[in-house]
């Protein structure tokens, strides 16, 4: 059977989430900043039109923001994550074969659907918009790479309700000739530069490239991209994402940290957050690596990491914090301005399969109940229970000066209507 893929991509996802709960933002330039309010990570079309680039530091465009009264938000990942799972849930009502590709993208397998694919794509778009408030673009084609191209066209086209379908396209070559090679799925900036050096400028050029040359230069992945552009399906839907191999919690500090106390607070706090994430995924970690780093641009540069092995895999916050504090004792260096610290948990196993060590005398059952109680309380209140080691003031904490409310996950931050 012929393969048919639809790529559904949320338009300016983070901005769209903000707009659902704040209708005044419609038609206005809006941007969302990364952690620590550092860089622009999402822009409304109006903000793009002002020339505000993706990923640029916020201070570089401060003048533009002021002049055009651009609405600025800190990222509200709690909200974006919830809205993302709603969008994916709606999409899964259209086909059981869905691959959640990122927070704002999903591939759907529509092979064997007898209806008009364009109509179906339009129905998907309308339903997601109505149920969740999030606008999406849909592109349909016979391979994932071409579905990406179709989606790219949908976004660029002036017709807002268009659903490009390239499955039986007679003018595929013309379509591909309009797509710059760096926009092709799997072609990174560096690859694009190498390709352009030999005159491969567009997706069309790439689709006509010599397979042997591509194999020599870019390996089998490059070959697959070329075949996919020719309409030969090389990538299937990946419905069972590989089991999580590691879990990372790391953030830049709001301002540089010099004292060992503050560094410990931060590490403890990240360890605590990591514990929460582990428990939510019903996992336990066998190893914890803590790393600290200064800015790369100063005289006293320093990067180091330290790994602790747990006697038996754990997701108990108390144990995680103890390991994090030990690591900081080992890693700390005087007169260093630390910029970032992080906790990486590896050797993850399912919570139910924790191997008890023979000499382990912790009351697992009791600590498990304590963690459950803490998680249950924290799900309900806006100022969560914390371990004392996490500190009270947390002056190193990342800045979220302009975060909107967590409208869908906190009783005390619900949307208000009159």
């Amino acid at each position: 059977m012929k393969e048919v893929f639809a790529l559904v991509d949320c338009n300016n996802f983070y901005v769209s989430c903000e707009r659902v709960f704040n209708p005044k933002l419609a038609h206005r330039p809006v941007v969302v900043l990364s952690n620590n309010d550092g860089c622009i990570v999402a822009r409304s079309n109006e903000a793009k039109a002002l020339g505000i680039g993706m990923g640029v530091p916020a201070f570089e465009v401060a003048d533009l923001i002021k002049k055009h009264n651009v609405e600025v938000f800190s990222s509200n990942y709690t909200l974006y994550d919830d809205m993302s799972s709603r969008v994916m849930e709606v999409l899964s009502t259209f086909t059981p074969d869905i691959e959640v590709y990122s927070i704002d993208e999903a591939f759907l397998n529509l092979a064997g659907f007898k209806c008009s694919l364009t109509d179906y794509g339009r129905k998907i778009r309308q339903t997601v918009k109505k149920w969740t408030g999030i606008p999406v673009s849909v592109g349909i084609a016979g391979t994932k790479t071409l579905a990406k191209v179709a989606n790219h066209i949908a976004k660029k086209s002036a017709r807002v309700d268009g659903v490009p379908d390239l499955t039986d396209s007679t003018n595929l070559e013309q379509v591909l000739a309009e797509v710059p090679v760096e926009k092709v799925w799997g072609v990174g900036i560096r690859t694009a530069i190498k390709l352009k050096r030999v005159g491969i400028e567009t997706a069309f050029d790439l689709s006509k490239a010599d397979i042997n040359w591509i194999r020599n230069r870019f390996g089998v992945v490059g070959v697959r991209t070329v075949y996919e552009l020719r309409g030969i399906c090389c990538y299937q839907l990946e419905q069972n994402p590989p089991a999580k191999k590691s879990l990372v919690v790391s953030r830049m500090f709001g301002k540089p940290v010099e004292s060992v106390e503050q560094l410990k607070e931060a590490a403890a706090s990240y360890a605590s957050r990591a514990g929460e994430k582990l428990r939510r995924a019903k996992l336990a970690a066998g190893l914890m690596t803590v790393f600290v780093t200064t800015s790369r641009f100063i005289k006293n540069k320093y990067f180091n990491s330290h790994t602790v092995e747990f006697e038996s895999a754990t997701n108990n916050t108390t144990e995680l914090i103890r390991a994090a504090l030990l690591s900081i004792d080992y890693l700390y260096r005087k007169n260093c301005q630390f910029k970032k610290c992080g906790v990486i948990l590896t050797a993850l196993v399912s919570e139910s399969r924790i191997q008890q060590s023979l000499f382990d005398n912790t009351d697992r059952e009791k600590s498990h109940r304590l963690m459950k109680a803490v998680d249950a309380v924290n799900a309900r209140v806006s100022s969560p229970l914390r371990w004392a080691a996490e500190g009270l003031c947390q002056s190193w904490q990342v800045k979220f000066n302009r975060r909107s409310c967590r409208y869908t996950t906190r009783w005390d931050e619900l949307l208000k209507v009159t």
Partner: protein
Amino acid sequence: MVTEVKKVHTPDLSVKHLQSLFVAAVPAGFPSPAADYEEDKLDLNKHLIKNPAATFFVRVTGDSMVGAGIHHEDLLVIDRSIEPKDKNVVIAVVAGELTVKRIRIKSRKITLEPENLNYSAQEIAEDTEFEVWGVVTSVIHKL
């Protein structure tokens, strides 16, 4: 404001309450005659929420809808997937503002009606930016 810590208490872990291994009843004799009739417990979530992906909760401020049993601070359950019909209570967006009102749809004329004599109905002009954000399906009112 700085929170001051006067004393840090450490948990007392000296006593353990472990479940003894042999407390469960040994299944012998007749099985419970009710076992066959077991059903799921009543779940308010299932009762109030038909379409979780499209359901949102919002908090009411003000008293413009008291006649409909919607009070200040009440919680509303909103289902965005429902097509609004005449006389539904809806969350509407009028010129960027969110409001809860009863919608009246007569041929092409749309009116938003409050349920409180102190407020007046609002007819939606053709050129007003207007959108139904979602249909209210339940009110949760604390007594």
